[in-house]
């Protein structure tokens, strides 16, 4: 148990380190944006702020103080969850993000469910089957993994919204408006995850403990579901950094394509308007999510793989049914 606590402690420390680095990076971006930082914060060269606004920004960000004081107060603000004020929306960045977060979380969760269900189902059904079945699955995975979500979304719109007219093309209200964006976001990710999962599953299905389970007379599906899947899930968990990033990045595109509300749309309009506090706020938030997910993953490992909970003495392969 001591070992587990120490592991968690280290992970927390590493996560805090990454967040500190991210906050530092956002400070550097503000400092090194060409020209006056106050001007950059209110919208770059093309913005024409009144002297009062410039004065307010200078005060708020302490731009008249030495850099180390500015840096410390920047870290302090981030630590308190204060990400500055949007100069386009005239409201705190955290509030602007908070208003949009619900729609994005909804989309990301729906897409995660679709991607995981599809990739697990296809991998379970096709791993170590006939050659043509595996070939077809791997071809399909390559195809969807190589398809950018903005094109996939256009194809889905062409067929389901404008061809068959059965699903709405835009909006972010209700379940029906969620279906197409969720699939556009999920399918490319499902392609990558499915590929990894199938390879892992094929490897596991050759392990001696699978043979022993089969000789006990268990049905093929039971062997796959109860014994093989658990082991094959590990690479999926390892890759969560990838697919959380893909979900967040993909949400930016999907929300724009389907004219949905959400953090992604907020981010794009902030980039267009050079609203630096909002852009940095969203980016810091995504770094925070990444750190959190990785922390959860490390804890999940402890649950999935009992060997990690023990003293490193356990060398041989753990036979099924260990926990």
């Amino acid at each position, binding site marked *: 148990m001591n070992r587990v606590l120490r592991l968690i402690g280290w992970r927390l420390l590493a996560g805090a380190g990454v967040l500190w*680095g991210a906050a530092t990076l956002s400070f550097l971006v503000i400092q090194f944006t060409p020209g006056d930082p106050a001007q950059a914060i209110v919208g770059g060269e093309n913005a024409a702020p009144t002297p009062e606004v410039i004065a307010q920004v200078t005060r708020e960000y302490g731009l008249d103080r030495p850099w180390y004081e500015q840096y410390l107060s920047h870290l302090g603000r981030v630590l308190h969850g204060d990400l500055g004020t949007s100069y386009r929306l005239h409201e705190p960045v955290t509030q602007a993000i908070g208003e949009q977060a619900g729609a994005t979380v909804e989309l990301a969760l729906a897409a995660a469910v679709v991607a995981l269900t599809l990739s697990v189902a296809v991998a379970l059904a096709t791993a170590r089957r006939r050659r043509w079945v595996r070939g077809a699955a791997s071809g399909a995975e390559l195809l969807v993994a190589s398809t*950018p979500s903005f094109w996939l979304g256009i194809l889905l719109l062409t067929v389901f919204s404008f061809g068959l007219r059965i699903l709405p093309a835009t909006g972010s209200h209700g379940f029906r408006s969620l279906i197409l964006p969720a699939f556009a976001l999920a399918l490319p990710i499902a392609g990558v995850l499915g590929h990894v999962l199938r390879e892992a599953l094929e490897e596991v299905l050759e392990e001696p403990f699978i043979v022993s389970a089969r000789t006990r007379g268990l049905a093929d599906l039971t062997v796959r579901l109860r014994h093989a899947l658990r082991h094959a899930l590990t690479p999926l968990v390892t890759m969560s950094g990838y697919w959380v990033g893909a979900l967040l*990045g993909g949400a930016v595109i999907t929300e724009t394509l389907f004219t949905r509300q959400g953090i992604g749309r907020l981010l794009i309009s902030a980039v267009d308007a050079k609203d630096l506090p909002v*852009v940095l706020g969203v980016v810091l938030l995504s770094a925070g999510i990444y750190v959190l997910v990785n922390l959860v993953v490390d804890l999940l490992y402890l649950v999935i793989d009992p060997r990690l909970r023990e003293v490193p003495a356990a060398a041989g392969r753990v036979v099924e049914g260990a926990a």
Partner: protein
Amino acid sequence: MKGIRPGVWLAALVLVLLVAAALAPHLFTGQDPLAVDSARTLQPPSAEHLLGTDENGRDVYSRIVFGTRTSLLLGFGAIAIALVGGGLLGVLAGLGNRFVEGLIMRLSDVGLAFPELLLALVVITVAGGGTWNALVAIGVANIPNYARVVRAQTLSIRRSTYVEAAHALGLSGPRVVLRHVLPNAVKPVLILATIGVGTALVAGSALSFLGLGTPPPEPEWGSMLSTARNFISRAWWYGVFPGAAITLTVISVTVVGRWLRLRSEGRTS
């Protein structure tokens, strides 16, 4: 592996054609990608316009052909930046003392915490949009990944017997790095980069799709799709073909990349 061969050949052929189209688009189409024809807007595919026309009556096929250069440039250019930047940092981390290594690795930890597209968006907010800025933005966003891989390679080569032998023979430090460590670290990374070109190309066209990469009059696949989005109900061909070009390119690059990786793994083991 025998079963894969025809697919790999096909993918390589597609890549050759794409590179040819990027270098000499005139060989593939006689039409001007910028020629506006207001009498023939949003025409479906026909003998005259193989893939139809867009909202300004421009030929979609020739716009796709002429867009190849920008799209390939984005993919290959961004990965070149990531390779050079990540390569330098990775070798430095692999050969440097604990402080240098720790610093570079922690920096790359921070970099990895940002999704590629979001990091690129920060660069564009500060530096502005356009093809070149998009290229640099995606390249920079990819540096941490390559730095990690190159460092791991460098570390394993540094401890290998042939580097020890080179040192024992009295070769100078920089010479060992240039002649023995670098070339051996580069090969596996180049294979990784082949597959990375596909992802970078998608990211580049995504930026154009969002209106932050290549600006509209110039033909580029992502920005074509961005406009096509407004005409989905009237012109399916406009939204279908430019995207098909992206997917076809990514598949070809990935297939060739995977084949290279399999081949190199077969050789080393």
